[in-house]
């Protein structure tokens, strides 16, 4: 047995690159790493645009300017950001508890349906009373849709992922039924659709955008404080970590589960009301329009931090509005915008890996720090 040969081969078998767990990084280093990821993502996206035969710099500047060049553009961008922001905040509460609420879509819709009832049938009420009732109804609708899976989970241990997902479809077909049946607008000939809300039932504008943006900003602060400084926020983190430990600490896990899901759904429902009464001024099947799913990505990308959620959802809004401008100006299809979004996501998620691990080259083990 030739031991020396073996040991030589050991050295040689050191891989060219290997993955090593990092010591904890400081907050500053993490921010820098994330910025780097965004830059790399832009570079990679630029390459992609170049391949399509366009000038990446021109496209990027147009995306940015398209979303922000005029007050009108900014207003349009804001309109995209508002529902995304509110919904992301809503799902964050559930995710913090490790409750996989992927039913935000349905909760938005239920909020919008409940609110629409008042908009359609009590349009003669005093404006502020009416808006108040609609907001409450929206919260109630969303909360109800959040409570159903939470109740079954607490009671029978059902899987919330599937449950919340299925409820989305029920909510969606509820609108479909309403617009073809009881709530059908008699004014629209033959074609199933719900009537436009009365002016009295729509949200006021502040700086040219429906006042939902104020609600959204207030919610950012509220959710931030709720999660970080309140007793209930603390309970949510403990339950999220381990229900056993929560029970041991004397927490009523069931109550916390139900309460948090009611809140999470309620916020999403409020988002639905704002979308219907502020942006669409009616109830359509597109009231949620996938926002409930995008919000999941936004929430996790932001690591469930409300302030970062504000920034990330704004970026998503800019990208979306900007690419629609690019589409009309350059004739670049919106699918390309989706690809760009995908590239950015890829890099940012990849960056999370580098926050926890790093590569070490062959023979550099000793110097590594």
């Amino acid at each position: 047995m030739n031991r020396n040969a073996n040991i030589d081969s050991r050295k040689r078998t050191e891989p060219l690159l290997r993955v090593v767990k990092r010591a904890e990084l400081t907050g500053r280093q993490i921010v820098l790493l994330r910025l780097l990821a965004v830059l790399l993502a832009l570079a990679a996206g630029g390459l992609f645009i170049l391949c399509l035969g366009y000038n990446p710099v021109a496209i990027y500047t147009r995306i940015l300017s398209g979303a922000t060049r005029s007050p009108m553009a900014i207003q349009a961008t804001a309109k995209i950001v508002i529902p995304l922001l509110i919904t992301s905040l809503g799902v964050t509460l559930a995710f913090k508890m490790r409750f996989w609420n992927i039913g935000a879509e349905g909760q938005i819709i239920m909020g919008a349906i409940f609110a629409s009832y008042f908009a359609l049938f009590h349009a003669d009420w005093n404006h502020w009373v009416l808006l108040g009732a609609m907001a409450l109804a929206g919260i109630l609708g969303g909360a109800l849709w959040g409570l159903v899976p939470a109740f079954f989970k607490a009671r029978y241990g059902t899987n919330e992922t599937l449950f919340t997902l299925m409820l989305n479809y029920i909510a969606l077909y509820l609108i479909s039924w309403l617009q073809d049946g009881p709530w059908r607008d008699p004014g629209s000939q033959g074609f199933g659709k719900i009537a436009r809300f009365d002016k009295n039932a729509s949200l006021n504008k502040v700086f040219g955008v429906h006042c939902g943006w104020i609600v959204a900003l207030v919610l950012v602060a509220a959710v931030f404080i709720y999660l970080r400084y309140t007793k209930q926020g603390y309970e949510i983190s403990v339950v999220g970590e381990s229900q056993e430990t929560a029970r041991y600490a004397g927490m009523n896990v069931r109550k916390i589960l139900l309460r948090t899901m009611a809140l999470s759904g309620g916020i999403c429902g409020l988002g639905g009301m704002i979308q219907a009464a502020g942006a669409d001024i009616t109830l359509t099947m597109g009231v949620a329009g996938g926002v409930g799913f995008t919000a999941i990505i936004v929430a996790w990308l932001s690591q469930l931090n409300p302030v970062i959620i504000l920034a990330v959802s704004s970026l998503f809004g800019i990208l979306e509005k900007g690419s629609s401008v690019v589409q009309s100006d350059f004739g670049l299809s919106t699918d390309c915008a989706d690809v760009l979004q995908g590239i950015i996501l890829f890099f940012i998620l990849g960056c999370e890996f580098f926050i926890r691990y790093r590569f070490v080259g062959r023979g550099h083990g000793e110097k590594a720090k």
Partner: protein
Amino acid sequence: MPHSTERKSADRTSVLAAGALSGKDAIACRGITKRFGTVVANDHIDLTVRYGEVLALLGENGSGKTTLMNMLSGIYHPDEGVILVDGQEAVINSPVDAMNMGIGMIYQHFRLVDVFSAMENIVLGTKEKRLRDKELKEKISEICQSFGLEIQPEKRVYEMSVSEKQTVEILKVLYRGTRILILDEPTAVLTPQETQKLFQILRKMKEQGCAIIIITHKLHEVLEISDRVTILRKGKSIDTVETAGTDEKILTELMVGKAVSLEIDRPPVNHKSPILKVVNLTVKKPDGTKAIDNISFEIRKGEILGVAGVAGSGQKELCEAIAGLMKIDKGAILYEQENIIGKTPAEIIRMGISMSFVPEDRLGMGLVASMDMVENMMLKSYGNGRGPFVDRKPARELANRLVEKLGIVTPGIDTPVRLLSGGNVQKVLLGREIESCPNLLITAYPVRGLDINSSYTIYDLLNEQKKKDVAVIFIGEDLDVLLELSDVIMVLCHGKITGFLDARKASKEQVGLYMTGAFSQEVAQ
């Protein structure tokens, strides 16, 4: 890769041939340094282990033992320093590399697939083609014979006791041709009898020429099994001594850096009236079998009731029943003459009953791994004070106080507790429970995995509680400590009480006999 298989078979024969190497250095660490952020877990450590010897690695909690062993087994990579294997510089990148060099590690948390049989677990992950069951069994029994192991190859892991699982783990590394075996606190969860069995195996391995490194906090085990002891203190290697020329006192001093008294005092009990009375309590496990079978006992204020018993005799269920975490089948629990059955855990905490159970994985229940010390301090008291907001200030003060009082080694009170070393995690838990000023303190295995100095700190803390008229139920493993610390010892066996003994008069052998249920007193109601 033809190369690797060749190497492995070479290793397999070398286990048997290793006898020839006896006395040669198996592993030598030179100036190993490992930092985690600002914490220097290992600071220029030197360590040598030879073939044919057992080296004990001794050090206080957080002194860097596990970190060092993780570098030998390829989980971490040193920041500085070299590791020599068989006298040659080696780069160990992964557990697979370590295995190919003949280094095997037994972790404290078992890494077995529960639904697989012992045999399937043993071959899992090896690259060679699956052998036929019969051949495999032969091979396993061959290894078993040469090292004196006993296993049932067909038994599924989930049906096994802790010690059986450990045997499978050992077999797993032996099957892979290990010549250098590292065991991280293998005895922490074993009964004394199981520990003896393990030591038999280790002695056999030593005879065959293997090199063995064992980490344990129990000094009598160090003296019993090892040939040499290397002592770490605060990440530095302080000294290596021959076991033959040392004793518990010297070792403790080397480890702590100053003389420590290893005496436990036992203040007398002044009260007559019981604070807690358990009457005909029966608790069933989820599978319907009786975990606790019709037991009755009482405890007075200012008394320490020691509970002895083989692991799994109903200790956990007893704790959980009193804390309100488990459904009670029959019987009553009277606390200050009030039946507490049916009360919620929160109500029971508010009545002044504190329960802390240190499970085998230590973090399990009682602490939130990803939270820092401050937030863990608030776990039971976060609801105090009016208003919707939590008050972090008292928790922060408490955390700082505990770090000082119990000597908790941590980069800071804002570090998640999952990054603390095993022993420090426990100090955080117990410290919080004691500081909550309970009237009844139930603590199960509070010194599991604690170093000797910290263990004595804990015993002192318990005595301090006793003097404050707190009733203490102490569920322990170490009979010597139970006999020295408790006033009364209650022995559990299969969920039944086999006897009450006066700890001042009873002997270890007596307790041992009651534990096995060999004889039991008539327990008068």
